[in-house]
């Protein structure tokens, strides 16, 4: 009886072949859907935040079904830092670039002077660019929040 209890305690919640296989199958599709939500934000409900959360959820799902190491194997801590900063830098950079090109901050139509697409098309495209930045940033921060809080800051074990 005691052995059984100990074994149950030792087992992580996701340690079941059904869950592992289905998660492994689902993760690529979840990520694809996340990308779709980011990219299709112009035409349907969605956008950077929503898509970023979905992308982040795919890594969190990996950590839930396997363990934190598997999740860290798919996205290293360093990649997380670089991508998160890159996301924020894309947004601020696009805004500043517009200001440096002679417009005002975040005035995407001013970017027309760099690549002539037409000011209105540039507004649409500028929104797309910042949504990508937002998606990257939100994904990394969601994953970082989960990793850190679930493992109490150790980034090695946890759920």
């Amino acid at each position, binding site marked *: 009886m005691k052995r059984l209890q100990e074994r149950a305690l030792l087992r992580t919640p996701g340690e079941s072949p059904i869950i592992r296989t289905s998660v492994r199958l689902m993760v690529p599709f979840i990520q694809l859907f996340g990308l779709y939500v980011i990219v299709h934000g112009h035409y349907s409900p969605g956008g950077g935040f929503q898509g970023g959360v979905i992308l982040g959820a795919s890594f969190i799902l990996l950590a839930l079904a396997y363990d934190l190491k598997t999740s860290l194997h798919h996205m290293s801590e360093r990649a997380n*830092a670089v991508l998160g900063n890159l996301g924020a*830098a894309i947004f*601020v950079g696009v*805004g*500043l670039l517009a200001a*440096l090109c*002679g417009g005002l901050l975040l*005035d995407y139509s001013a970017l027309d002077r760099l690549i002539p697409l037409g000011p209105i098309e540039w507004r649409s495209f500028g929104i797309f660019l910042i949504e990508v930045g937002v998606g990257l940033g939100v994904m990394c921060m969601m994953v970082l929040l989960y990793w850190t809080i679930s493992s109490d800051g150790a980034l090695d074990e946890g759920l």
Partner: protein
Amino acid sequence: MTFVNLHIYVLLMPLLAALAVNVAGRFDRRWIAPLVLGALGFSLSGALLVLARVVQHGALRYTVGNWQPPYGIELVVDHFSALMLVLITLVALLASFAALKSVEQELPGREYLFFTLYLILITGLCGLVLTGDAFNLYVLLEITSITSYGLIAMGKGRAPLASFNYIIMGTIGACFYLLGVGYLYILTGTLNMADIARLLPALDAPFATATALAFMLVGLWVKMAFFPLHGWLPNAYCHAPTGAAVLAAPLMTKVTVYLMVRIILSMYGPAFVFDASAVQDGIVWVAAIAILCGSVMAFGQKDLRRMLTYIIVAEVGYMVGGIFLGTGTGMTGAILHIVNDALMTLCLFLAVAAIIYRQGSVSLVSLQGIYYRMPVTMAAFTLGAFAMIGIPPTCGFFSKWYLLLGGIEAGHWEYVIALLTSSLINAVLFFRIIELAYFGALADGAHHDHAPGERHEAPWWLVKPLVITAMLLIVVGLSTGPLVNNVIRLVLPAGF
């Protein structure tokens, strides 16, 4: 480089530096100091240029994204916000020297995280003073709050508990502010402050506008630790890492006072806010009580840093009271006091940081005979203490003078008495410390083996900014006239 976007560069440079610190500082911490100091130095020089341009050419309204103001977000660069921009970047630059050194000692290995949050906090504060949009103000308020929650929770011992209290109180404050904005949005359908100011007088909704104002003010009072709502502040600033306290203590409360002035002057207009004289009188009374309670509670503390946090609570009472006197002199005094108090608090906290760097504690017992060990630090501390008490020619005297005049003009004697009493209590408080620091070692024979004459100053990273701040206290005090005539007078609306 076009000058139209100058304040944007001032605002975003610390943010970019924060991203750079986060990446580069992670791999090699030698990158941190040049990035932080470079960005803040750039911001300070940019802010000075912005102020010079505003004084010369008048206020500037900037539309982000080139959209018409009620649709897009508007930034307002007028005399007041330019002045605050200079103040914030100046204080941040001076504080960052001390922060760089003390964080190295207190939080080894986590410096890049600390400075990422530190720089974003500065961006948030700069953004707060620039914005002309009620909802944008909420977002920036949350940026400054979240960064300071993180910075405070990095401390040791009770710091996480203090930080959690701050999170709960800060969120209540921010949510109340957001509720006020929501009420105004339902009533007017706009979020732009100037547009709200245009629509409010024509609105026939006295209950809802008053409710909205009440919620916004209470929300900001929680954030600025106005007396009955001040519970979170002493613990938070007392247990925070020294580097965080040096930045947050001078700036956070003052910027929130700025926001209150902004709401009163450019959103509601003084005519609306100072209409109900019973409420106004009540707030001045509460401010008087705040001043007295802050000072008395400061008197009971056994730790210098904790004592200073209670003095901050009293100073918030000065400013809120001065604003709600409803006279031009009182308002001038309050605005001048924002500037002066930021510098005075910075001076005292830098001195505390220097002492903590050397001996790890600033309990009153440990300050015995410290004059002999750290003469320069304590000289600057004395100057800061004089400014806090209000001894001319330090800047503290002039703003208190304006506040006193305003109180007498408005006939609010309770405020005048509270101010004078609090100055007296401050004098007793600080002379007690100065006495202890100067004569303590002579009286105490036990310390003689640890020769009191042995000089052991903190490194120049901590001492030089402190000396500069102490000089600034006198410089700003002596240039009160031009400051009031060229900048602060122009902040007040006509006929006020």
